[in-house]
Protein backbone atom coordinates (compact mmCIF):
# COMPACT_ATOMS: atom_id res chain seq x y z
CA UNK A 1 0.00 0.00 0.00
CA UNK A 2 1.34 3.43 -0.94
CA UNK A 3 2.12 5.71 1.98
CA UNK A 4 2.49 9.49 2.01
CA UNK A 5 4.62 11.94 3.98
CA UNK A 6 3.70 15.45 5.07
CA UNK A 7 6.43 16.62 2.71
CA UNK A 8 4.33 15.33 -0.20
CA UNK A 9 6.44 12.28 -0.99
CA UNK A 10 4.91 8.91 -1.83
CA UNK A 11 6.49 5.67 -0.56
CA UNK A 12 6.02 2.22 -2.05
CA UNK A 13 7.58 -0.61 -0.09
CA UNK A 14 8.43 -4.02 -1.52
CA UNK A 15 10.72 -6.57 0.20
CA UNK A 16 12.33 -3.93 2.41
CA UNK A 17 13.04 -1.55 -0.48
CA UNK A 18 11.04 1.69 -0.60
CA UNK A 19 10.56 3.62 -3.84
CA UNK A 20 10.26 7.36 -3.20
CA UNK A 21 8.75 10.04 -5.42
CA UNK A 22 6.74 13.23 -5.12
CA UNK A 23 2.96 13.35 -5.30
CA UNK A 24 0.90 14.74 -8.17
CA UNK A 25 -0.12 17.55 -5.84
CA UNK A 26 3.53 18.42 -5.18
CA UNK A 27 4.45 18.27 -8.85
CA UNK A 28 1.58 20.57 -9.71
CA UNK A 29 2.48 23.02 -6.95
CA UNK A 30 6.12 23.13 -8.04
CA UNK A 31 5.28 23.86 -11.64
CA UNK A 32 7.67 23.09 -14.48
CA UNK A 33 10.61 21.15 -13.06
CA UNK A 34 13.90 22.02 -14.76
CA UNK A 35 16.63 20.47 -12.62
CA UNK A 36 16.93 17.52 -10.27
CA UNK A 37 19.83 16.43 -8.11
CA UNK A 38 19.66 12.90 -6.70
CA UNK A 39 21.54 11.27 -3.82
CA UNK A 40 24.67 9.18 -4.39
CA UNK A 41 24.17 5.48 -4.99
CA UNK A 42 25.05 3.54 -1.87
CA UNK A 43 24.73 6.53 0.42
CA UNK A 44 23.59 5.85 3.96
CA UNK A 45 20.92 8.36 4.91
CA UNK A 46 19.04 9.25 8.05
CA UNK A 47 15.44 10.29 8.21
CA UNK A 48 15.19 14.06 7.62
CA UNK A 49 18.49 14.33 5.71
CA UNK A 50 18.30 16.50 2.65
CA UNK A 51 18.97 13.92 -0.07
CA UNK A 52 17.70 15.44 -3.30
CA UNK A 53 16.92 18.84 -4.77
CA UNK A 54 14.20 19.85 -7.20
CA UNK A 55 14.35 23.13 -9.06
CA UNK A 56 11.28 24.37 -10.83
CA UNK A 57 11.21 27.58 -12.86
CA UNK A 58 9.88 29.20 -9.71
CA UNK A 59 11.97 27.89 -6.82
CA UNK A 60 14.22 25.23 -5.32
CA UNK A 61 12.80 22.55 -3.02
CA UNK A 62 14.50 19.91 -0.93
CA UNK A 63 13.60 16.26 -0.79
CA UNK A 64 14.19 14.81 2.64
CA UNK A 65 14.96 11.17 3.36
CA UNK A 66 11.69 9.81 4.75
CA UNK A 67 13.41 6.90 6.52
CA UNK A 68 16.79 5.65 7.72
CA UNK A 69 18.45 3.41 5.15
CA UNK A 70 20.72 2.98 2.16
CA UNK A 71 20.16 4.41 -1.32
CA UNK A 72 20.15 1.34 -3.59
CA UNK A 73 18.82 2.81 -6.83
CA UNK A 74 18.38 6.26 -8.35
CA UNK A 75 16.31 7.29 -11.36
CA UNK A 76 18.86 8.86 -13.72
CA UNK A 77 16.11 9.34 -16.32
CA UNK A 78 14.63 12.27 -14.41
CA UNK A 79 18.04 13.94 -14.16
CA UNK A 80 18.22 13.96 -17.98
CA UNK A 81 14.53 14.77 -18.37
CA UNK A 82 13.18 16.59 -15.29
CA UNK A 83 9.86 17.25 -17.03
CA UNK A 84 9.08 13.54 -16.58
CA UNK A 85 8.31 14.29 -12.93
CA UNK A 86 5.57 16.71 -14.01
CA UNK A 87 4.23 14.24 -16.56
CA UNK A 88 4.22 11.08 -14.43
CA UNK A 89 5.14 11.86 -10.82
CA UNK A 90 3.85 8.59 -9.38
CA UNK A 91 5.21 6.36 -12.14
CA UNK A 92 8.25 6.99 -14.31
CA UNK A 93 9.04 10.14 -12.36
CA UNK A 94 10.15 8.27 -9.21
CA UNK A 95 13.29 9.59 -7.50
CA UNK A 96 15.21 6.87 -5.65
CA UNK A 97 14.94 3.54 -3.85
CA UNK A 98 15.98 3.18 -0.25
CA UNK A 99 16.67 -0.12 1.54
CA UNK A 100 15.34 -0.09 5.08
CA UNK A 101 15.92 -2.35 8.07
CA UNK A 102 12.44 -2.32 9.46
CA UNK A 103 9.41 -2.15 7.15
CA UNK A 104 7.20 -1.29 10.13
CA UNK A 105 8.82 2.16 10.01
CA UNK A 106 6.30 2.94 7.26
CA UNK A 107 3.36 2.54 9.60
CA UNK A 108 3.60 6.11 10.85
CA UNK A 109 2.93 7.60 7.41
CA UNK A 110 -0.43 8.56 5.93
CA UNK A 111 -2.51 6.34 3.71
CA UNK A 112 -4.13 7.69 0.55
CA UNK A 113 -7.27 8.87 2.36
CA UNK A 114 -5.35 10.72 5.05
CA UNK A 115 -3.14 12.36 2.43
CA UNK A 116 -6.14 13.40 0.35
CA UNK A 117 -7.51 15.06 3.48
CA UNK A 118 -4.19 16.86 4.09
CA UNK A 119 -4.12 18.47 0.68
CA UNK A 120 -7.85 19.20 0.78
Amino acid at each position, binding site marked *: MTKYTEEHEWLDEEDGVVTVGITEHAAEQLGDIV*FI*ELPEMGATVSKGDQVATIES*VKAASDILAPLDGEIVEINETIVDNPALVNEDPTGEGWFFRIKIEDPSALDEFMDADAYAELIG
Partner: protein
Amino acid sequence: MSAPDEAGTLLQTPLAGLHAELGGKMVGFAGYALPVQYPAGVLKEHLHCRASAALFDVSHMGQIVLEGAEAAEALESLVPVDVLGLKPGRQRYAMFTNADGGILDDLMVANLGERLFLVVNAACKAADFAHLQAHLGQAAQWLPDRALIALQGPKAGAALARHAPGVTALRFMDVAEMTIAGADCIVSRSGYTGEDGFEISVPAGAAEALARALIGEPEVEPAGLGARDSLRLEAGLCLYGSDIDTTTSPVEANLAWAIQKVRRRGGAREGGFPGAERILRELETGPARLRVGLKPEGRAPVRAHAPLFDREDAAEAVGAVTSGGFAPSLGAPVAMGYLPAAMAENDTRIFAELRGRRVPMRVCPMPFHPTSYKRN
Protein backbone atom coordinates in the same frame (compact mmCIF):
# COMPACT_ATOMS: atom_id res chain seq x y z
CA MET B 1 5.83 36.89 -2.83
CA SER B 2 3.36 35.85 -0.19
CA ALA B 3 1.28 32.69 -0.11
CA PRO B 4 -1.69 32.28 -2.43
CA ASP B 5 -4.08 31.97 0.51
CA GLU B 6 -3.35 35.59 1.38
CA ALA B 7 -4.78 36.68 -1.96
CA GLY B 8 -8.14 37.43 -0.34
CA THR B 9 -6.81 40.45 1.54
CA LEU B 10 -5.04 41.93 -1.46
CA LEU B 11 -6.04 44.65 -3.90
CA GLN B 12 -7.64 43.52 -7.13
CA THR B 13 -6.75 44.81 -10.57
CA PRO B 14 -9.49 45.59 -13.12
CA LEU B 15 -8.69 42.23 -14.74
CA ALA B 16 -9.31 40.12 -11.60
CA GLY B 17 -12.43 38.50 -13.06
CA LEU B 18 -10.62 37.57 -16.24
CA HIS B 19 -7.71 36.01 -14.31
CA ALA B 20 -10.15 33.82 -12.37
CA GLU B 21 -11.91 32.76 -15.57
CA LEU B 22 -8.57 31.91 -17.23
CA GLY B 23 -7.50 29.80 -14.24
CA GLY B 24 -4.76 32.16 -13.07
CA LYS B 25 -2.93 30.99 -9.95
CA MET B 26 -3.15 34.11 -7.84
CA VAL B 27 -0.42 35.30 -5.48
CA GLY B 28 0.22 38.46 -3.54
CA PHE B 29 2.66 40.82 -5.23
CA ALA B 30 3.27 44.39 -4.02
CA GLY B 31 -0.12 44.34 -2.32
CA TYR B 32 -2.05 43.10 -5.35
CA ALA B 33 -3.52 39.73 -6.23
CA LEU B 34 -1.92 38.82 -9.54
CA PRO B 35 -1.54 35.59 -11.51
CA VAL B 36 1.89 34.00 -11.12
CA GLN B 37 0.89 31.65 -13.92
CA TYR B 38 -2.07 30.25 -15.82
CA PRO B 39 -2.73 26.54 -16.42
CA ALA B 40 -0.17 26.44 -19.26
CA GLY B 41 2.62 27.08 -16.73
CA VAL B 42 5.60 29.42 -16.60
CA LEU B 43 7.70 27.53 -19.13
CA LYS B 44 5.08 27.47 -21.90
CA GLU B 45 3.98 31.03 -21.19
CA HIS B 46 7.58 32.21 -21.45
CA LEU B 47 8.24 30.38 -24.71
CA HIS B 48 4.94 31.52 -26.18
CA CYS B 49 5.93 35.13 -25.55
CA ARG B 50 9.25 34.56 -27.35
CA ALA B 51 7.57 32.78 -30.28
CA SER B 52 4.29 34.66 -30.63
CA ALA B 53 2.66 37.08 -28.16
CA ALA B 54 1.75 37.14 -24.48
CA LEU B 55 -0.58 39.38 -22.52
CA PHE B 56 0.39 40.46 -18.99
CA ASP B 57 -1.67 42.37 -16.44
CA VAL B 58 0.68 44.98 -15.00
CA SER B 59 -2.05 47.18 -13.56
CA HIS B 60 -0.34 47.12 -10.17
CA MET B 61 2.26 49.54 -11.49
CA GLY B 62 1.89 53.22 -10.71
CA GLN B 63 0.79 55.63 -13.44
CA ILE B 64 1.55 59.26 -12.72
CA VAL B 65 1.23 62.40 -14.86
CA LEU B 66 3.26 65.56 -14.45
CA GLU B 67 1.45 68.66 -15.72
CA GLY B 68 2.83 72.03 -16.63
CA ALA B 69 5.62 73.62 -18.60
CA GLU B 70 8.07 73.26 -15.71
CA ALA B 71 7.53 69.54 -15.20
CA ALA B 72 10.45 68.29 -17.28
CA GLU B 73 12.92 70.64 -15.64
CA ALA B 74 11.58 69.78 -12.19
CA LEU B 75 11.79 66.04 -12.87
CA GLU B 76 15.43 66.48 -13.89
CA SER B 77 16.14 67.47 -10.29
CA LEU B 78 15.18 63.91 -9.25
CA VAL B 79 16.66 61.76 -12.04
CA PRO B 80 20.11 61.68 -13.74
CA VAL B 81 18.38 61.60 -17.10
CA ASP B 82 17.80 64.07 -19.94
CA VAL B 83 14.08 64.80 -19.61
CA LEU B 84 14.12 68.25 -21.26
CA GLY B 85 15.56 66.67 -24.39
CA LEU B 86 12.90 63.96 -24.53
CA LYS B 87 10.84 64.71 -27.63
CA PRO B 88 7.03 64.53 -27.71
CA GLY B 89 5.97 60.99 -28.52
CA ARG B 90 9.11 59.48 -27.00
CA GLN B 91 9.74 57.52 -23.83
CA ARG B 92 12.92 56.83 -21.90
CA TYR B 93 14.16 54.81 -18.95
CA ALA B 94 15.05 56.69 -15.76
CA MET B 95 15.65 56.18 -12.07
CA PHE B 96 14.97 58.25 -8.98
CA THR B 97 18.23 58.56 -7.06
CA ASN B 98 18.84 59.39 -3.41
CA ALA B 99 21.44 61.68 -1.85
CA ASP B 100 23.89 58.77 -1.58
CA GLY B 101 23.58 58.00 -5.29
CA GLY B 102 21.45 54.90 -4.66
CA ILE B 103 18.32 54.06 -6.62
CA LEU B 104 14.91 54.78 -5.05
CA ASP B 105 13.06 53.28 -8.02
CA ASP B 106 13.40 52.83 -11.74
CA LEU B 107 10.73 54.12 -14.07
CA MET B 108 9.64 55.01 -17.57
CA VAL B 109 9.13 58.67 -18.53
CA ALA B 110 7.07 59.49 -21.62
CA ASN B 111 6.56 62.90 -23.20
CA LEU B 112 2.89 63.19 -24.20
CA GLY B 113 3.33 66.75 -25.45
CA GLU B 114 1.30 68.66 -22.87
CA ARG B 115 2.41 66.45 -19.97
CA LEU B 116 4.80 63.77 -18.87
CA PHE B 117 3.56 60.25 -18.18
CA LEU B 118 5.45 58.12 -15.66
CA VAL B 119 5.17 54.39 -15.00
CA VAL B 120 6.73 53.32 -11.70
CA ASN B 121 7.07 50.08 -9.76
CA ALA B 122 4.09 48.98 -7.68
CA ALA B 123 6.06 48.41 -4.48
CA CYS B 124 7.55 51.92 -4.68
CA LYS B 125 4.64 53.86 -6.08
CA ALA B 126 3.38 55.49 -2.88
CA ALA B 127 6.89 56.63 -1.96
CA ASP B 128 7.54 57.77 -5.54
CA PHE B 129 4.36 59.82 -5.57
CA ALA B 130 5.18 61.45 -2.24
CA HIS B 131 8.70 62.16 -3.52
CA LEU B 132 7.32 63.79 -6.68
CA GLN B 133 4.75 65.86 -4.80
CA ALA B 134 7.40 67.04 -2.34
CA HIS B 135 9.41 68.44 -5.23
CA LEU B 136 6.79 69.23 -7.88
CA GLY B 137 3.72 69.91 -5.73
CA GLN B 138 0.34 69.56 -7.41
CA ALA B 139 1.96 69.18 -10.82
CA ALA B 140 2.25 65.46 -9.98
CA GLN B 141 -1.04 63.56 -10.08
CA TRP B 142 -2.06 59.93 -10.26
CA LEU B 143 -3.58 58.96 -13.55
CA PRO B 144 -6.72 57.65 -11.84
CA ASP B 145 -8.60 54.41 -12.47
CA ARG B 146 -6.29 52.94 -15.04
CA ALA B 147 -5.19 49.46 -15.89
CA LEU B 148 -1.90 48.67 -17.62
CA ILE B 149 -1.73 45.80 -20.08
CA ALA B 150 1.50 44.59 -21.63
CA LEU B 151 1.34 42.77 -24.96
CA GLN B 152 4.75 41.33 -25.71
CA GLY B 153 6.28 39.17 -28.39
CA PRO B 154 7.17 39.13 -32.08
CA LYS B 155 3.50 38.88 -33.09
CA ALA B 156 2.23 41.49 -30.62
CA GLY B 157 2.29 44.20 -33.31
CA ALA B 158 0.18 42.23 -35.74
CA ALA B 159 -2.35 41.27 -33.06
CA LEU B 160 -2.68 44.78 -31.64
CA ALA B 161 -2.84 46.46 -35.06
CA ARG B 162 -6.18 44.73 -35.74
CA HIS B 163 -7.63 46.81 -32.90
CA ALA B 164 -5.38 49.85 -33.15
CA PRO B 165 -3.98 50.35 -36.66
CA GLY B 166 -2.02 53.36 -35.35
CA VAL B 167 0.44 51.17 -33.47
CA THR B 168 2.07 50.05 -36.71
CA ALA B 169 3.72 53.47 -36.99
CA LEU B 170 5.30 53.23 -33.53
CA ARG B 171 8.95 52.32 -33.11
CA PHE B 172 10.74 51.13 -29.97
CA MET B 173 10.20 53.65 -27.14
CA ASP B 174 7.64 55.68 -29.11
CA VAL B 175 4.49 56.57 -27.21
CA ALA B 176 1.11 57.78 -28.46
CA GLU B 177 -2.37 58.51 -27.20
CA MET B 178 -4.96 56.69 -29.24
CA THR B 179 -8.47 55.34 -29.07
CA ILE B 180 -8.68 51.55 -28.90
CA ALA B 181 -12.11 49.94 -28.96
CA GLY B 182 -13.61 53.27 -27.94
CA ALA B 183 -11.29 53.82 -24.96
CA ASP B 184 -8.67 56.54 -24.61
CA CYS B 185 -5.38 54.69 -24.25
CA ILE B 186 -1.72 55.59 -23.93
CA VAL B 187 0.34 53.10 -25.91
CA SER B 188 4.11 52.77 -25.78
CA ARG B 189 6.18 50.39 -27.85
CA SER B 190 8.21 49.02 -24.98
CA GLY B 191 8.14 46.33 -22.34
CA TYR B 192 9.98 44.16 -19.89
CA THR B 193 10.64 41.00 -21.88
CA GLY B 194 13.31 41.89 -24.45
CA GLU B 195 10.74 41.35 -27.19
CA ASP B 196 9.00 43.82 -29.42
CA GLY B 197 5.75 44.76 -27.74
CA PHE B 198 3.51 47.34 -26.17
CA GLU B 199 2.36 48.64 -22.83
CA ILE B 200 -1.18 49.96 -22.97
CA SER B 201 -2.58 52.26 -20.30
CA VAL B 202 -6.35 51.89 -20.50
CA PRO B 203 -9.26 53.21 -18.39
CA ALA B 204 -10.13 50.60 -15.76
CA GLY B 205 -13.67 50.22 -17.06
CA ALA B 206 -12.48 49.35 -20.56
CA ALA B 207 -9.57 47.13 -19.54
CA GLU B 208 -11.32 43.78 -19.43
CA ALA B 209 -12.94 44.24 -22.85
CA LEU B 210 -9.55 45.17 -24.34
CA ALA B 211 -7.76 42.24 -22.67
CA ARG B 212 -10.46 39.83 -23.87
CA ALA B 213 -10.22 41.21 -27.39
CA LEU B 214 -6.44 40.76 -27.40
CA ILE B 215 -6.53 37.27 -25.90
CA GLY B 216 -9.08 36.46 -28.58
CA GLU B 217 -6.43 37.01 -31.23
CA PRO B 218 -4.89 33.72 -32.38
CA GLU B 219 -1.33 34.81 -31.58
CA VAL B 220 -1.99 35.84 -27.98
CA GLU B 221 -1.97 33.79 -24.75
CA PRO B 222 -2.05 35.17 -21.22
CA ALA B 223 1.14 35.01 -19.15
CA GLY B 224 1.75 35.59 -15.45
CA LEU B 225 4.36 37.06 -13.15
CA GLY B 226 6.51 33.93 -13.32
CA ALA B 227 7.08 34.25 -17.06
CA ARG B 228 7.45 38.01 -16.73
CA ASP B 229 10.35 37.45 -14.34
CA SER B 230 12.12 34.79 -16.41
CA LEU B 231 11.67 36.87 -19.57
CA ARG B 232 13.14 40.02 -18.03
CA LEU B 233 16.02 38.00 -16.57
CA GLU B 234 16.91 36.61 -20.01
CA ALA B 235 16.69 40.17 -21.36
CA GLY B 236 19.17 41.32 -18.69
CA LEU B 237 16.68 43.81 -17.24
CA CYS B 238 16.82 44.84 -13.59
CA LEU B 239 14.15 43.99 -11.03
CA TYR B 240 13.87 46.76 -8.48
CA GLY B 241 14.40 45.45 -4.95
CA SER B 242 16.55 42.57 -6.23
CA ASP B 243 19.10 43.86 -8.74
CA ILE B 244 18.88 47.53 -7.86
CA ASP B 245 17.95 49.32 -4.65
CA THR B 246 18.97 52.25 -2.45
CA THR B 247 22.46 50.76 -1.99
CA THR B 248 23.28 50.38 -5.68
CA SER B 249 24.18 53.35 -7.84
CA PRO B 250 23.06 53.48 -11.49
CA VAL B 251 26.71 53.15 -12.57
CA GLU B 252 27.29 50.07 -10.41
CA ALA B 253 24.06 48.65 -11.80
CA ASN B 254 25.50 48.96 -15.32
CA LEU B 255 22.81 51.50 -16.17
CA ALA B 256 25.23 54.28 -17.18
CA TRP B 257 23.73 54.08 -20.69
CA ALA B 258 20.58 55.67 -19.22
CA ILE B 259 22.53 58.79 -18.12
CA GLN B 260 22.78 61.05 -21.16
CA LYS B 261 25.84 63.24 -21.82
CA VAL B 262 23.96 66.43 -21.02
CA ARG B 263 23.67 65.36 -17.36
CA ARG B 264 27.29 64.17 -17.08
CA ARG B 265 30.37 66.18 -16.18
CA GLY B 266 30.92 68.83 -18.82
CA GLY B 267 27.31 68.55 -20.05
CA ALA B 268 25.04 71.58 -20.36
CA ARG B 269 22.93 70.43 -17.40
CA GLU B 270 25.61 68.56 -15.49
CA GLY B 271 24.52 67.05 -12.18
CA GLY B 272 21.67 68.68 -10.32
CA PHE B 273 20.11 65.37 -9.22
CA PRO B 274 20.37 63.59 -5.86
CA GLY B 275 23.64 61.73 -5.44
CA ALA B 276 25.24 63.52 -8.40
CA GLU B 277 28.63 63.70 -6.70
CA ARG B 278 29.00 59.92 -6.44
CA ILE B 279 27.32 59.12 -9.74
CA LEU B 280 29.36 61.61 -11.77
CA ARG B 281 32.56 60.44 -10.09
CA GLU B 282 31.76 56.79 -10.85
CA LEU B 283 31.03 57.66 -14.48
CA GLU B 284 34.55 59.09 -14.77
CA THR B 285 36.66 56.80 -12.63
CA GLY B 286 34.55 53.65 -12.69
CA PRO B 287 32.51 52.10 -9.89
CA ALA B 288 33.91 49.77 -7.23
CA ARG B 289 31.55 46.99 -8.31
CA LEU B 290 29.39 46.18 -11.28
CA ARG B 291 26.24 44.26 -12.08
CA VAL B 292 27.21 41.47 -14.46
CA GLY B 293 25.64 38.55 -16.24
CA LEU B 294 26.58 35.12 -14.91
CA LYS B 295 26.24 31.64 -16.37
CA PRO B 296 26.57 28.62 -14.07
CA GLU B 297 28.76 25.97 -15.71
CA GLY B 298 26.45 23.16 -14.63
CA ARG B 299 22.71 22.81 -14.91
CA ALA B 300 21.73 23.81 -11.39
CA PRO B 301 20.09 27.23 -11.17
CA VAL B 302 21.87 29.67 -8.87
CA ARG B 303 19.35 32.04 -7.36
CA ALA B 304 19.29 35.42 -5.64
CA HIS B 305 21.43 35.87 -2.51
CA ALA B 306 23.92 33.13 -3.39
CA PRO B 307 27.33 34.51 -2.30
CA LEU B 308 30.06 34.75 -4.94
CA PHE B 309 33.74 33.90 -4.42
CA ASP B 310 36.82 34.57 -6.53
CA ARG B 311 38.28 31.11 -5.76
CA GLU B 312 36.75 27.74 -5.05
CA ASP B 313 38.28 27.73 -1.56
CA ALA B 314 37.98 31.46 -0.77
CA ALA B 315 36.62 32.27 2.68
CA GLU B 316 35.33 35.77 1.98
CA ALA B 317 32.57 36.45 -0.55
CA VAL B 318 33.35 39.12 -3.14
CA GLY B 319 29.76 39.64 -4.24
CA ALA B 320 26.33 38.05 -4.51
CA VAL B 321 23.77 36.92 -7.03
CA THR B 322 20.79 39.29 -7.20
CA SER B 323 18.58 37.37 -9.68
CA GLY B 324 18.93 33.92 -11.06
CA GLY B 325 17.04 30.95 -12.33
CA PHE B 326 16.38 28.73 -15.28
CA ALA B 327 16.25 30.49 -18.64
CA PRO B 328 13.61 28.67 -20.70
CA SER B 329 14.80 30.12 -24.02
CA LEU B 330 18.35 28.90 -23.36
CA GLY B 331 17.44 25.66 -21.62
CA ALA B 332 20.09 26.53 -19.06
CA PRO B 333 20.47 28.53 -15.87
CA VAL B 334 21.45 32.20 -15.91
CA ALA B 335 21.95 34.80 -13.21
CA MET B 336 23.02 38.35 -12.57
CA GLY B 337 24.84 39.78 -9.61
CA TYR B 338 27.46 42.20 -8.37
CA LEU B 339 31.23 41.66 -8.55
CA PRO B 340 34.22 43.91 -7.91
CA ALA B 341 34.85 45.90 -11.10
CA ALA B 342 38.21 44.16 -11.57
CA MET B 343 36.39 40.81 -11.84
CA ALA B 344 33.60 42.01 -14.10
CA GLU B 345 35.29 41.20 -17.39
CA ASN B 346 33.53 38.67 -19.59
CA ASP B 347 34.61 35.07 -19.15
CA THR B 348 36.01 35.64 -15.65
CA ARG B 349 35.48 32.42 -13.69
CA ILE B 350 34.03 32.79 -10.23
CA PHE B 351 32.22 30.50 -7.79
CA ALA B 352 28.78 30.63 -6.22
CA GLU B 353 27.89 28.85 -3.03
CA LEU B 354 24.98 26.50 -3.62
CA ARG B 355 23.77 24.09 -0.94
CA GLY B 356 27.18 24.07 0.73
CA ARG B 357 29.13 23.54 -2.49
CA ARG B 358 31.03 25.91 -4.75
CA VAL B 359 29.59 26.01 -8.27
CA PRO B 360 31.71 27.58 -11.05
CA MET B 361 30.13 30.41 -13.04
CA ARG B 362 31.40 32.65 -15.80
CA VAL B 363 30.82 36.35 -16.27
CA CYS B 364 29.00 36.79 -19.57
CA PRO B 365 27.43 39.58 -21.60
CA MET B 366 23.76 40.47 -21.27
CA PRO B 367 21.14 40.10 -22.59
CA PHE B 368 21.26 36.32 -22.33
CA HIS B 369 18.68 36.09 -25.10
CA PRO B 370 18.94 38.56 -27.99
CA THR B 371 16.40 41.38 -27.84
CA SER B 372 14.13 42.03 -30.80
CA TYR B 373 13.00 45.61 -30.29
CA LYS B 374 11.41 47.33 -33.28
CA ARG B 375 14.01 50.02 -33.80
CA ASN B 376 13.28 51.08 -37.39
